[in-house]
């Protein structure tokens, strides 16, 4: 089971970006940025173990792969490109060398090029949504992105912050938990899945969208696309080049396993039940 409190935040973000030319040829390329988080893939056959020093969980030797919500984000970006509504899809990831594998997966799905923002070692261990959104904001300005699509949250830390922070830093409108998005001229109609139901909003580009589960079903990489991905470029960038300080403002005090599940107690009558609940201070 996913235990958000104990999984170390392993953040790498894949971005692709959108252009506002919708169908008209543009002279300058305007890439689409989609966010994507790589996190520790939770496999129920691998027992997640807390590190002995209780500062996080063990990630050595655990296979990393693309965050499922980020896959949906990349799929949406590629769909926009196939509809000729955007010109270029750029996939971005922050992290150590191994995130290049995930960027390549995005390229194999159809993204045009990749950007690897190199963050490794101690910096990587403390990399969180705030730093990543700063990186994104800087990249968005540099690449002149018009649309950033991210997964709504990473399934290792469940932060659900990066999209919102990025929009705030850029002072862009945001459409989060998107289950549907439609580009209409320079406006984006987003249907959001919220607690109360479905909310439809219209936001102006440039904007940030975070993908929810029902936005689409990601495609399998086809063999020809995997071959083509080999030739696509992945640029290397350091956070310092973007003027971003990846120092964390958070200190992890401790990480623990959740308490062992205790056996329940069987009672004979409803009165007994109420009595037990009162004893436990639940009522």
């Amino acid at each position: 089971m996913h235990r958000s409190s104990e999984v170390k935040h392993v953040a790498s973000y894949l971005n692709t970006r959108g252009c506002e030319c919708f169908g008209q040829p543009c002279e300058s390329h305007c890439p689409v940025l989609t966010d994507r988080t790589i996190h520790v893939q939770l496999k129920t056959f691998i027992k997640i173990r807390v590190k002995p020093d209780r500062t996080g969980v063990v990630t050595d030797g655990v296979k990393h792969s693309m965050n499922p919500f980020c896959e949906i984000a990349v799929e949406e970006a590629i769909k926009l490109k196939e509809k000729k509504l955007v010109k270029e899809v750029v996939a971005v990831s922050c992290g150590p060398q191994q995130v290049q594998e995930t960027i390549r997966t995005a390229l194999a799905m159809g993204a045009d090029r990749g950007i690897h923002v190199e963050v490794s070692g101690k910096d990587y261990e403390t990399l969180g949504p705030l730093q990543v959104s700063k990186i994104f904001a800087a990249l968005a300005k540099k690449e002149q992105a018009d649309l950033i699509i991210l997964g709504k949250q990473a399934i290792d830390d469940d932060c659900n912050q990066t999209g919102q922070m990025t929009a705030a830093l850029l002072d862009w409108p945001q459409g989060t938990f998107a289950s549907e998005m439609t580009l209409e001229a320079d406006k984006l109609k987003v249907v959001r899945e919220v607690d109360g139901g479905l909310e439809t909003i219209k936001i102006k580009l440039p904007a940030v969208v975070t993908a929810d589960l029902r936005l689409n079903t990601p495609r399998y990489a086809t063999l020809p696309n995997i071959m083509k991905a080999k030739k696509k470029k992945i640029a290397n960038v350091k956070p310092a080049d973007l003027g971003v300080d990846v120092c964390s403002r958070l200190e992890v005090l401790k990480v623990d396993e959740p308490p062992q599940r205790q056996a329940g107690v069987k009672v004979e009558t409803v009165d007994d039940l109420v009595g037990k609940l009162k004893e436990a201070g639940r009522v």
Partner: protein
Amino acid sequence: TPSSCLRPPSPPPTRALTPRTRELPPLPQLAELPELHQMMRQTCRDYAQKELAPIAAQLDKDHKFPAKQVKELGAMGVMAVEVPESLGGAGMDYLAYCLAVEELSRGCASTGVIVSVNNSLYLGPILKFGTEEQKKQWITPFTTGERVGCFALSEPGNGSDAGAASTLAQQEGDEWVLSGTKAWITNCWDASATVVFATTDKSLKHKGISAFLVPMPHPGLSLGKKEDKLGIRASSTANIILEDCHIPLGNMLGERGMGFKIAMQTLDSGRLGIAAQALGIAQAALDCAADYAHKRTAFGAPIGKLQAIQFKLADMALAIESARLLTWRAAMLRDAKKPFTKEAAMAKLAASEAATFVSHQAIQVLGGMGYVTDMPAERHYRDARITEIYEGTSEIQRLVIANNILKEYQQ
């Protein structure tokens, strides 16, 4: 006509999102394969896990050809891995193809053999021996998954004894007329074309056999009853009966009398596809057994703690790993255009014997649960058995290996 055979490519298949899917352990070899092959293997594994494994048992029960999945695999490029992009294929190498077949077979062995027969036995010889015109007509429509092909060499009277083909081909004007019966043809009930081997000059014995391309359906070509098999039941197997079957002269593949050579070379490559299928079946059986060993408790602990089970799992893993390396090596030799006949025979022999051994032991590890259809172990056992028989029996493989060894040591 060729143009009417061409269809626009179907959209790439999508997959259901299951962020908490129980995934199979990553195989350590992934670190040694080139990145391209790793990605390709992962994509096939994802597909097999999400789209094939959940339906494999039902396909087996219903003896149902997985048409939808074959089309999706076609859209992914998996039905024509080695075919160059100019002809509609994925343009990858044979190692990639072997990886694909293994991963797909891990999900569903029948789908694995359907993919293998189309790639190695049908597209393979046409790619190697066909004219440009034949390639366009007989390859391109068979790369998308919309159509599959088959390979008709065996007859009721000869399997291993391929040189004794009794199917005849006689020239009548500007046509060939084929007559005879072919047996054990995989895919035939679902195929749109076949490569048929027939004797053009009986006096030349095996040097008098030629290869022909026949569309299906076609007047003069009929299919026997679908065989009710022990395993790989989602793939159809039947006789092909040729009675006064007329085909244009241009449908001969390669030169007259070249048929036996074409068959043997095709089978050399085809047996790597079958080795890969056997590996997939074996791996699936090992997955089943190892998982059960963790969960099943007896004598107060998971049975994985017992040495009897541990020794079995070790032997199973060793058999698979050895066969896998042999398969990869043979594939790499073939890709490097080096001789690979002996290695391919070794790979097929090792992999098929590994498949039968591993699936047998997997049932043993599962005990009673291995014998019932609730668990896939029994299906792996049934699917594995054919790998020691088709595309060259284990006995023939031994002869091929021995002949090669003796040649190496010839004075």
